[in-house]
């Protein structure tokens, strides 16, 4: 019985696999899988718990009488507040969509020449990008603020969107993926008289769709979870994640509503990943760093 289930789970026709070791490894995977997924399952359950179940002792993991009250409360609460909930949602959507689409376009436009041609500066530019994978935005936070205020972008959405357009990981992955486009394809287009811009837009871009989705899956959650940081002060420009912080700061009376917002925040990126998973894996196969 156990052998049969295991046989169904594991990939067919693998060499040199002993049953016992497979069993132990899968058990190990299952235990850690539970550790990974339980907090998320709990977050989903929480969003549907009525108040009395949220504060029960001892705390209960699964919801017993699911209700959508928390979502109605959320709408009611935000309808009464000074800035309606829809405003936060629109801000978040605006930042996320413009930032993600813009990033995909700019990063692929920069990746195409770097992947396919040698010209003065191409190697240096790419190695600077690779180097910038090796440190985080915290290093540049202070000068960034000064540059922003000098540009007059403090308290605008541009301060979040524009820097995110040049996220180095996106360029890196896009460039690695574009390298596998056959040169013959580009040559053929060139002989037919297409300009470099046309080749980029009509030949390269359609061929790297999996990479678009990968850049999206990396960029989207970062922007979706952005709380405006130090750059945005006006209430009507703030994001959904910021609103979540405000709601949960309201204390235990808002626990249900907080759980509802948290569910909205987490479900969107996860859904996107489910849709794009196979494409993302395809792109990641080319992610390796060459020596």
């Amino acid at each position: 019985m156990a052998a049969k289930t295991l046989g169904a789970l594991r990939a067919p026709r693998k060499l040199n696999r002993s049953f016992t070791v497979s069993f132990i490894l899968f058990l190990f995977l299952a235990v850690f899988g539970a550790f990974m997924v339980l907090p998320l399952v709990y977050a989903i359950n929480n969003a549907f718990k009525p108040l009395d179940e949220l504060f029960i002792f001892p705390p209960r993991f699964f919801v017993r009488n699911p209700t959508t009250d928390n979502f109605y409360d959320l709408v009611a609460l935000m309808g009464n507040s000074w800035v309606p909930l829809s405003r936060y949602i629109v801000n978040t959507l605006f930042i996320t969509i413009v930032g993600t689409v813009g990033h995909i376009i700019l990063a692929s436009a920069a990746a195409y020449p770097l992947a396919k041609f040698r010209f003065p500066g191409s190697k240096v530019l790419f190695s600077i990008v690779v180097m910038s994978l090796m440190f985080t935005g915290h290093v540049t936070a202070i000068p960034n603020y000064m540059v922003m205020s000098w540009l007059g972008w403090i308290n605008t959405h541009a301060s979040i969107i524009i820097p995110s357009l040049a996220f180095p990981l996106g360029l890196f992955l896009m460039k690695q993926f574009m390298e596998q486009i056959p040169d013959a394809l580009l040559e053929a287009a060139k002989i037919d008289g297409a300009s470099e811009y046309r080749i980029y837009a009509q030949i390269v871009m359609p061929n790297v769709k999996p990479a678009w989705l990968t850049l999206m899956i990396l960029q989207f959650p970062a922007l979706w979870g952005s709380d405006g940081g130090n750059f945005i002060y006006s209430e009507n420009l703030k994001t959904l994640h910021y609103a979540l912080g405000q709601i949960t700061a309201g204390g235990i009376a808002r626990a249900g509503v907080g759980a509802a917002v948290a569910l909205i925040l987490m479900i969107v990126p996860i859904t996107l990943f489910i849709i794009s998973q196979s494409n993302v894996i395809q792109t990641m196969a080319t992610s390796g760093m060459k020596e």
Partner: protein
Amino acid sequence: MQAETISPAVSTDLVHPKKHSKLANLMRELKKNKHYYILMSPYMLIFFAFTVIPVVISITLSFFYFNMLEFPRFIGWQNYSRLLLNDDVFMIAMRNTFLFAVFSGPISYIACFLFAWIINELSPKVRAIMTLVFYAPSISGNVFFIWLIVFSGDRYGYLNGFLIKWGFILEPIQWLTNEKYILPIIMIVQLWLSLGTSFLAFIAGLQTIDKSIIEAGAIDGIRNRWQELWFITLPSMRPQLMFGAVMQITGSFAVADISIALAGFPSVNYAGHTIVTHLMDYGTIRFEMGYASAIATVLFVIMLGTNMLTQKLLRRVGE
């Protein structure tokens, strides 16, 4: 004397035409490739404005006293000497950051590979589900607040509730305000969140290993999965392993948001303080920008140095 006056003239005469043609060559190259520069320019403009130039500004500012109001005043190495010799809190931050780098960095790296490796043994459908299970936490944004409920200090906290119910403890433990527990808890949550880009890269890398190499290996006498892992899988995944290392190392040095969300800012007795939270303290609260830039520069050097070193080591895997 004469030789001295003549030789430069001769050399310029000889070099000049060559130099000129080099410049002309470059101009021709630039002109020929101008479309590529135009394609790259929007990205590169933003990239330089918000990543490259800020690094240079940050390094420069670290030698100045600057409080955003007065004009910056040059003070040489003073920021660094204060940071490294006179700042006890920075030493705590360094210690914590290195603990993250030494423990959660390598553990998360190995976990990424190990789980990807086991998942690769599964059939495609199960594989897709398990990939989602392990990857989901890293993209679910700010769900780590769930851990606040787990480690909550009263008896409604999950861990406390469980331990009290089963009789391990009699009264709730203040998990997030007790110095002893803060760091391990942040590490656990950090690990939970850290199966991100590198995990996906490993999953993908494992799927693209040429099946014929594995078959050839079996004929050549590889008898179990461990030998296959060491002699075939790891060497063929070297590029992905290097990429994953960069991602995990950079991430483990940058722990800050989780520490702030779980332990507060500043945390009790700086138990959850890291270099990045120290940087935030001076940069966004005390406005000692020169000093904060020195912290940022130290962080930059540490991150870059560790990454370069690891790349060198990984090049030897399976050789």
